[in-house]
């Protein structure tokens, strides 16, 4: 358990051993379809496909998927509602095509979010970061991102431990105390991150690794059947989405 439900789901997913490139092709294709196809029926089909793949073959827990989708859902609800309210000389009112516009916006956004979540809940970040090298992102940048990924779990654990201790000492019993505790919490996490980085660097330098963290990349071979299924499925979605 790492403390981030989506990351936990990705490590436990039945698709964990699949090639990241294969999953990027599938999820990237679904994201593009969600954006480009008409909301009805295109985006709806994309959303249902992503959901069915996540809960079916990828075996992502429905609870994790449902909880993760709450963030985008809140934004989509507020954003879609705001976009169809008109401000005129008579005050507030509904846009003439309010229901269709809100439905289209929510359809595209929900389908796209489901496709991104399918990637997030089946592929750990440490599998995706090496793929950035293929996009010609400099090695130094990928390495900084990799260190960020590895350190954030350590810092999140520190954050929870310190907050628990502060709460037990009535650190959040009033608004004023809550602010003081939050400030001390952020400062403690920052100084710990510096301290961790310094100690890790000293440890690596002591082992002669002064030019970066080199690790053996895990080889996850591509599956022809998966790629063929992805291409066929995306083609079918585009055909149905455009012709229906």
């Amino acid at each position: 358990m790492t403390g981030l439900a989506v990351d936990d789901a990705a490590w436990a997913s039945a698709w964990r051993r699949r090639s990241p490139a294969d999953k990027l092709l599938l999820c990237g294709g679904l994201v593009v379809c969600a954006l480009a196809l008409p909301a009805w029926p295109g985006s709806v089909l994309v959303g249902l496909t992503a959901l069915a793949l996540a809960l079916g073959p990828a075996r992502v827990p429905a609870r994790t998927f449902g909880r993760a989708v709450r963030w985008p859902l809140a934004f989509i609800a507020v954003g879609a509602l705001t976009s169809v309210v008109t401000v005129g000389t008579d005050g507030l009112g509904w846009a003439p095509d309010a229901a269709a516009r809100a439905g289209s916006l929510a359809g595209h956004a929900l389908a796209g979010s489901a496709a991104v979540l399918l990637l997030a809940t089946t592929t750990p970040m440490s599998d995706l970061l090496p793929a950035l090298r293929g996009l010609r992102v400099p090695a130094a940048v990928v390495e900084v991102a990799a260190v960020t990924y590895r350190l954030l779990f350590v810092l999140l654990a520190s954050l929870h431990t310190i907050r628990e201790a502060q709460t037990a000492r009535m650190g959040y019993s009033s608004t004023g105390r809550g602010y003081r505790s939050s400030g001390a919490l952020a400062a403690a996490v920052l100084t710990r991150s510096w301290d961790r980085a310094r100690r890790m660097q000293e440890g690596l330098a002591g082992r002669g690794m002064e030019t970066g963290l080199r690790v053996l990349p895990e080889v996850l071979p591509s599956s022809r059947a998966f790629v063929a299924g992805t291409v066929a499925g995306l083609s079918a979605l585009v055909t149905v989405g455009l012709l229906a």
Partner: protein
Amino acid sequence: MHIAEGFLPATHAIGWTLAAAPFVVHGARQVVTEVRERPENTLLLGAAGAFTFVLSAVKLPSFTGSSSHPTGTGAGAVLFRPPVMALLGTIVLLFQALLLAHGGLTTLGANAFAMAVVGPWSGYGAYRLTRRLGGGLLPGVFAAMAVADLATYVTTAGQLALALPDAETGVAGAFVKFISVFALTQVPLAVAEGLLGVLLFRVLTVNARPELERLGLLAPAPEPTR
């Protein structure tokens, strides 16, 4: 609050990605140079990115009774400078999209432009102005964090208004709508984030003074006389 996946039309998503790209590439070049000259700083930069991500998980008591989360880019801009924050902020946004389902991949460019470019530069500008006008470190940090937060959400409101203009009043009307909805939560949050910054740096000036001196935020303390 980041723009969710699929919320922007494809042309806007591409446009905002192109707008953010020069800043992110500039930040990446600075990081590459820094890592080439001082490889040991890879870990410090990674720690800075992780801190920015984790700071967004700190719950702030809200004036409305609920709790909110800071963006953390104002503090990052003061500590690590805006160009580096353009890259670190983009990395953090990518992680938030893939680890928290907060934001998106096609909207990464738009969110990066708002949170990793406009926010840090505005916050850093407010910090420099406050220091130049004679304000100390803490008023400067308050200005940086509050302005970075507000600038991020004003930009996000503008991006949404351009993508979803009002049926009667166009982009201007849509901007007023989105900024009004965001103001309900973001103005109190900006003040709260500024206060958090003051409390954070007050602790740092006591517990991490050498690091703040090394980053150029505090003048070196005079040698004690014997």
